[in-house]
């Protein structure tokens, strides 16, 4: 590809970089036991939550930041972050009509019309602005089916027993540095509970938005699927443009009991930093893990990662139940100065467990894209199987791709396959398209969409179209 094309390719605009002028209730910068207490107090939490937070905070103090990822970034000053920011609301919201119109405008700009499109499409939406859930649609209709879909803060209040039982059961606060931090200060997030023998009557969806400068977003999501139940959940994320970096350290925990299935999809488009200098952008340091606790349970992670200055996450599955299934389908597109170190961990514990990892990494501009994954077959996991495929695509001459698979097998009956490939979008391919009258932009979109097809096919139908458009958007005004 010519340098001129790369130049254009690396000059695309971030559409979601606006800030909304909304009165916020912001905690002072810095982290201390007082701040942790303040967060808990603001949220009117019961004692067990405060205890959970404080234990996590005290543990966090003993930890040091992990350094093993490929990502390079200046040291984060954890005392220079607002750990709590919420849109000021005078009364508690009972319905969408009471939501601040400025906020609704924001979500409209983001292409998330809470009322119209999604409702017509039959998707329930939970919108989270900075740290607080501002609107959850379709709550009542879901409740009729027995499905609980609400902000985490509401779950703590209304379903304390379930929260107490499962919060931290998949990702304990001792798990890692950022999980400990999140456990201490998490503000809100989505809570989903699907009772026995229940199929969620619609797709559930959360939209996350960071608005306040120098604030961190620490949301916490918990999804529990009881026996013979099913849910499909999608999260989308955006943030305004700021010169300073913002930390996003979320924790997502999934629990699937016997014959339960959870499909978790992510379309991540956080602000990636200035295209020319790499300044600003989100540090997306997230811990996502699912526990296939029950027999024949299944957890699927599908992620489309296109944003963030740095993405550092490994959605994982603990395959405990006999014949349980873990899947990970990922497309990670990095451009400009973005860095991604992402992949999956499949820990096989029960017998006859099966896992699949399909990872597609696309590196454009001067970005670096790393697949890092672990497939571990424990002694107890008789006849476990894994199939892993890691494909990397390089665009231009300055981008980088790495593949770092770790495989640990402790039971000789296991069957594992690993395939990997690296390809480059060549000048010749682009010329071939152009000679047939197809412009570079459309050519790139077709090549990348073809490269990612096996992953897009795994997204809920309407979102696979969105994902395709998002990737095209990322390359739009950029080439041709």
């Amino acid at each position, binding site marked *: 590809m010519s340098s001129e094309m790369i130049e254009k390719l690396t000059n695309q605009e971030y559409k979601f970089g606006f800030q909304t002028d909304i009165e916020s209730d912001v905690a002072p910068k810095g982290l201390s036991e007082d701040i942790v207490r303040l967060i808990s107090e603001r949220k009117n939490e019961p004692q067990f939550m405060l205890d959970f937070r404080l234990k996590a905070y005290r543990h966090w103090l003993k930890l040091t930041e992990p350094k093993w990822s490929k990502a390079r970034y200046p040291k984060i000053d954890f005392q220079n972050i607002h750990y709590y920011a919420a849109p000021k609301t005078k009364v508690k919201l009972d319905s969408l009509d009471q939501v601040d119109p400025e906020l609704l405008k924001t979500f409209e700009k983001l292409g998330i019309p809470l009322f119209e499109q999604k409702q017509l499409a039959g998707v329930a939406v939970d919108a989270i602005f900075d740290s607080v859930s501002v609107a959850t649609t379709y709550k009542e209709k879901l409740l009729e089916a027995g499905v609980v879909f609400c902000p985490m803060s509401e779950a703590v209040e209304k379903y304390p027993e379930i929260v107490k039982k499962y919060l931290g059961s998949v990702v304990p606060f001792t798990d890692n540095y950022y999980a400990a931090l999140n456990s201490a200060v998490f503000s809100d997030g989505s809570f989903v509970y699907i009772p026995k023998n229940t199929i969620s009557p619609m797709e559930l969806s959360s939209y996350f938005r960071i608005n306040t400068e120098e604030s961190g977003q620490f949301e916490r999501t918990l999804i529990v699927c009881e026996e013979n139940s099913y849910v499909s959940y999608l999260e989308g994320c955006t943030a305004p443009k700021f010169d300073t970096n913002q930390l996003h350290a979320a924790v997502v925990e999934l629990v699937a009991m016997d014959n339960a299935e959870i499909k978790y999809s992510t379309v991540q488009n956080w602000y990636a930093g200035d295209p020319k200098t790499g300044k600003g952008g989100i540090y997306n340091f997230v811990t996502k893990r699912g526990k296939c606790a029950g027999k024949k349970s299944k957890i699927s992670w599908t992620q489309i990662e296109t944003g963030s200055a740095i993405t550092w996450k490994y959605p994982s599955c603990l395959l405990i139940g006999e014949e349980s299934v873990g899947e990970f389908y990922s497309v990670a597109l990095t451009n400009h100065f973005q860095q991604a170190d992402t992949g999956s961990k499949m820990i096989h514990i029960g017998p006859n467990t099966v896992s699949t990892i399909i990872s597609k990494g696309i590196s454009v501009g001067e970005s670096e894209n790393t697949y890092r994954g672990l497939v571990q077959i424990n002694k107890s996991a008789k006849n476990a199987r894994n199939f892993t495929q890691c494909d990397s695509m390089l665009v231009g001459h300055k981008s980088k791709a790495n593949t770092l698979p770790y495989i640990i097998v402790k039971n000789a009956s296991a069957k594992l396959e690993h395939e990997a490939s690296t390809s480059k979008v*060549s*000048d*010749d391919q682009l*010329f071939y398209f152009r*000679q*047939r*009258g*197809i412009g570079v932009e459309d050519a790139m979109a*077709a090549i990348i969409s073809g490269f990612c*097809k096996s992953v897009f096919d795994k997204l809920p139908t309407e979102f696979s179209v969105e994902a395709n458009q998002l990737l095209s958007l990322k390359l739009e005004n950029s080439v041709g």
Partner: protein
Amino acid sequence: MLTIHNLHAQIDENKILNGISLTVKPGEVHAIMGPNGSGKSTLAKVISGDSHYEVTDGEVTLEGKNILDMDPETRALSGIFLAFQYPVEIPGVNNAEFLRMAYNAKQKFQGKPEADPMQFDAILQSKLELVEMSPDFADRAVNFGFSGGEKKRNEILQMAVLNPKIAILDETDSGLDIDALRIVAEGVNQLRSPDNAIILITHYQRLLNFIQPDFVHVLANGQIVKSGDKSLALELEARGYDWLVSPVNG
């Protein structure tokens, strides 16, 4: 229709075309022959707009319009088609979808309605028969894992779908067995019309047994050193190129 005047082009400071002039009128078939390295493929690439080559002098016009200022896609949309000598593989991109993109790009350029997948399928089926390709050909990725012969037939299929004004076939005959050669040649012959023109770049006379050219040009050291009718090709077959090619001056 296509006029090339005093065309000079180079790649990385190496002069390859040294003043080519050629006029192609509607309905004509021109064969360009010549030894290896004489600039045949470069001529094809320069006309179609490959940015690796730099045009240092001369002009190329299509129906009076200077095409050298156009980007490759505009040239293609204006009616220039290159059947590549080595068609590139594009994994993951469906052949039928690729063809539809190209077809619709052209329709749009001409202000005509674009075809949806169903409508396009009907167009494609008739063209597949022309080059004796089975329908499952359309469902494979563009040129991916195709044999050499399949790739060449795919080029002719694309030519049939896009119906260009000027088709340049760059050694489409090389690497083909006699049956594939016949299929390709028959496809090309069916696409001949009084409104379009074809430039055949070839090493061998045998293609010209299947596709009768109106003119034969011999290219050597980036210049046309001799032009004639189809009997020139037979003469070249018998005598080789040496008698036409003067040694390169220091």
